[in-house]
């Protein structure tokens, strides 16, 4: 009930391409879905987040697509750049004031 499943585990994309990372959740009480970006030696940084009352949210080159009926959401990185090379984590939470449940992470490498 509390799991968030993330795929792929690793991803290699050419510069300028689209990176797509997928997540699926089980707990239907989840109502907040953030994505975090983590560089080696740093803490995770909040990248973008979505609530289930919308199907898509875009911030710059980053877009979250959300499918409530399928209990799935995904991160799309357009025009991927070498500086986007990092580990990305999706997460879910079922109410404010509670901790996040994280996926296992996706290591993205953008080749120049």
């Amino acid at each position, binding site marked *: 009930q509390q799991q968030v499943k993330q795929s792929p585990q690793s991803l290699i994309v050419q510069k300028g391409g689209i990176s797509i990372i997928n997540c699926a959740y089980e707990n239907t009480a989840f109502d*907040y879905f*953030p994505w*975090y970006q983590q560089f080696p*030696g*740093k*803490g*995770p*940084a*909040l990248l973008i*987040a979505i*609530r289930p009352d919308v199907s898509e949210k875009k911030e710059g080159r980053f877009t979250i697509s959300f499918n409530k009926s399928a209990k799935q959401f995904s991160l799309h990185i357009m025009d991927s750049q070498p500086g986007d090379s990092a580990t990305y*984590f999706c997460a879910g*939470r079922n109410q*404010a*004031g*509670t*901790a*996040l*449940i*994280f*996926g*296992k*992470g996706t290591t993205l490498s953008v080749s120049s």
Partner: protein
Amino acid sequence: SAVISQKPSRDICQRGTSLTIQCQVDSQVTMMFWYRQQPGQSLTLIATANQGSEATYESGFVIDKFPISRPNLTFSTLTVSNMSPEDSSIYLCSVETVRGSYEQYFGPGTRLTVT
């Protein structure tokens, strides 16, 4: 957001000793959490640090091993007690800055190596 600092940033400790990690936030926050991230792995919640009361621990984590304090709305400590090599991890504090905001921000982490 909030500026979150952790001390120490890294440490190498001997088996059987204890280490206290500090988390300081530049503004008052509603919630503080402690996570563990083992090398190359995801983040696992250790406990929620409650201001003025005992922390709430997740399954698999106990107060005797990971005592937590939160004396005010900007500061918390996590102690890793009687350490073993299996405790080698990155320990991260995170905060929710505004009640009901849903947004959580993470500190830079403390990288602990136990020999």
